[in-house]
């Protein structure tokens, strides 16, 4: 069970990180603040 839970968390983090690349590009193009 712990292995599945770990795999679930890793999959979530991987997808979230890749999703962040798309959001980051959109934010940059729209000039949104992503730092301060």
């Amino acid at each position, binding site marked *: 069970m712990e292995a599945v839970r770990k795999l679930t968390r890793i999959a*979530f983090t991987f997808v979230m990180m890749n999703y962040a*690349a798309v959001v980051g590009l959109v934010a940059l193009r729209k000039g949104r603040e992503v730092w301060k």
Partner: protein
Amino acid sequence: MESVFWWSIVVIVYVYAGYPLLLAAWARLTARTVPKADIGTARDWPALSILVAARNEAARLPARIANLLDLTYPGRREIIVISDGSTDDTVAAVSSFLSTTRASSRVRVIEIPAGGKPLALNAGAAAADGEILVFADARQQFAPDALVQLIANFDDPRVGGVTGELLLDCESAPSGNESSVADGVGVYWRYEKWLRRQESAVWSTLGATGAIYALRRSLWKPLPPDTLLDDVLAPMRAVLAGYRIVFEERALAFDRVSPNGAAESRRKTRTLAGNYQILAQEPRLLVPVLNPVWLQYVSHKFGRLLVPWALVGLFISTVVLAETSWVFASALAAQLGFYGLALAGAVMDARERHHSSGRAELPVALGKGMS
């Protein structure tokens, strides 16, 4: 559509497996060691200026300055705290702490209007008189020998900068960590540091860890005010000038992982937006004859920007092609399984955040080097 499928596979597999294998072989064949100074021998150590950009860090700064003052370093050091438009008692807290220590002459505080970290670092670097600039954040702590381990590498004149190793709490005990991203970030960060170690051995890393790195002051150029990744832009400028940035795994800083997926997502969004931004700030990075680490840069940093689009291309192409062959149908099933797991992870994250006992969210910081 089949070409979209296969190109997507090529990009994903190359970025996450092909490049690391290539790099491992490259590092094994051509590793360039750094002739470091012997730490135990009496010698002239270069003067350091340690820059800590901070906004509203009254609670953390006294302990942080104490940590920086306590570090073993035989040479001269000054600590410059740049308060970037703080509206809390940051300056008063530092002043109060300094009144209790005999080392107060080694610490300076500069106040500037709120303008962001790049302007704060510009102000700090302009005020610095050390030969080497050391960059630190308010939150992390350094190991006692972190400075000597970092600075010993500057004995090699080809070394323009040195990045230390940031150890996250989730790396040592991920299963006991309450953050829902501890497992994923722990795996990612160990993988990322392994890549940096190999890149450093080949010639240079592709940036630094914002929480702990050092740069020759002569290589510092003021950062554009809107810079998102100061810890990539400043080191990469040194690399473009012909210097190495090396990874020193014995120079340790310690930090905690983001408390949940939302905080990690914000941090990562900023980092990846910064990776896009830096291509506009330094287009030379994409020109092979101008960038000594072009292949590494394109494979590692640029590749990470391509992978999300390859994942989208892979998914769409397998949906369209699934009925034509068992290969595409299997690929679609594998992706649905993986995204199902990720969705379950997102639900767990949301639940844990909801039931969180109120662990304070950490501000964005460590990822400045995890880009």
